């Protein structure tokens, strides 16, 4: 159970930031003021993070619900499509690369953008390629 303990710790540590967010949130003395913050362009100092936490919680529920019902046949394509979707980091990368920031920052952004773009392209293409393979014989097709 030394192991159980170890893993417990590990998991906790990985979740810690999120735990942190919430607890910090719940007990920070600073009154929360918020911001449009919707374009990375002009962000005010403080952000009202509660809506974000709501969005996070809700979409996790959706994710679990939806993925749990994915056909077993398609678990490999599932992995590659979520792969492509998680490349949504592209949004952040574009903002960092394209905005009027110092060059070194933007280089980081450009690399990130390249990496995410690679995932998007390869992820969706290979998923599609795999799905094309799944056929159903006509006879089966009827009584479906």
């Amino acid at each position, binding site marked *: 159970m030394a192991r159980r303990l170890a893993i417990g710790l590990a998991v906790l540590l990985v979740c810690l930031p999120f735990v*942190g*967010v919430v607890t910090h949130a719940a007990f920070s003395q600073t009154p929360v003021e918020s911001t449009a913050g919707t374009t990375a362009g002009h962000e005010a100092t403080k952000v009202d*993070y509660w809506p974000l936490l709501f969005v996070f919680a809700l979409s*996790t529920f959706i*994710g679990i619900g939806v*993925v749990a019902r994915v056909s077993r046949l398609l678990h490999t394509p599932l992995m590659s499509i979520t792969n492509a979707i998680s490349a*949504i980091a592209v949004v952040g990368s574009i903002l960092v690369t394209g905005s009027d920031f110092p060059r070194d920052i933007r280089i980081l952004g450009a690399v*990130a*953008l390249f990496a995410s773009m690679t*995932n998007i392209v390869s992820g969706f293409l290979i998923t599609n390629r795999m799905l094309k393979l799944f056929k159903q014989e006509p006879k089966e097709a009827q009584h479906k």
Partner: protein
Amino acid sequence: MMTNIVQFAYLLASILFIFALHFMNHPRTARKGVMAGVLGMTLAVLATWAQPAVIHHWWIVFAILAGFAVGYPLSRVPLTAVPQRTALSHAFGGLAAGLVGTAKFYLWLRNEPEMLTHFRMIAIIAEIILGFLTLTGSLMAAGKLQEVKWIPQRPVTYPGQNIVNIGMLVVAVILGAMLIFNPTGAAVWMFPVIIFLSLLFGVMLVIPIGGADMPTVISILNSYAGLSAVAMGFVLDNKLLIVAGALDGSSGLILSIIMCKAMNRSFTNVLFGAFGQVQQAKAGGEQKVYKAETIEGAAQVMEQAQLVVIVPGYGMAVAQAQHRTRELADQLHKRGITVKYAIHPVAGRMPGHMNVLLAEADVPYSDLVEMDEINGDMPQCDVALVIGANDVVNPAARHDKTSPIYGMPIIDADKARTVFAIKRSKNPGFAGIDNELYFADKTFMLFGDAKQVVGDLAKELSGGSGMH
């Protein structure tokens, strides 16, 4: 105005992503899912790009083109290499998240340190730790799956390993915590240290894990990648990132749970179990005898059968034998013999691995039967043809409490009247243990490379007229 259109686009994109995953619940609708995903992603990219803040368009164009240049070939890899590719792209994902986090941190540090609120710092630290450990972890995983020379397949362990690993993570997190409370102070040097520790931890985490546990590791890393995207969302106050990241995170989580269930093992055991080391104790069991069988003999028995169940495993993948398998099945069909494929949830090296390979060989997915369904029919099965599967048909899982795979649900190949098992050698499967099925009276071994052997069988049945 602009803001609103962007937000609207992001909302649509989020919804499209949800549908993308939803459509995956049946092969018939699955391709719609890809369309939805592509659409959502395009929306997201365009909406972001369109923002006035974005001015360096050439940079973006070049980065995107480079992405296409690398991404396209990556999408053409042979299907047997899909696990590696997946691992690799998780690495990319982690990298992107980590870099954006780093960029944002230094940007704010220089220009508007007041932006580094506790909340944002927590998010940034989470983003970089998760991002960078995903990067190196996935690279290691990819290496092990690709069986790169200088990355050991078998788990590498040393005493106190877990303590050291956890220790590293602890330090990283503590440093992070300190940074959070004064990001701009003298402690800034900690930031690169944290990055370094995360990178190191990623490597250390995966080294002690055996090659065949990589799929589980991959999906765990998958959810980390998702979580780091979520963290980025918190940093940038961007809801789309949060939604997409959360979808990704939960999918990785669920897949790893499914796999662990199918192997009857805990996360702990996968991550810290150093599973798949060669069991010395068992190695000495050489008195047991294999009964080899000739192609002709096997072919004759099969001709007599009414129901043949094919149990494919990792070996079929390695040998690329799926097409030959299909040809064999066709020959049997010709003779009016029913052929079913028994798919174990963790056969091969990633979830759904066998389904994709056989689908590639034009096997209709209605013939791919899940473990629980097929096990009911096994007693009526005349011939079970085990093609490069081992652990997933090892009866020890049912009764031998001492076996490392004890309790793992298996395909009851041993319940069939006759069993033919194709493998190259007497070596154990990934779990590193002998398989008593091979020594059973009803079992006959067909030694050799799966592709070769199956091909010969097909040829034999087609009266020597089969191509090869």
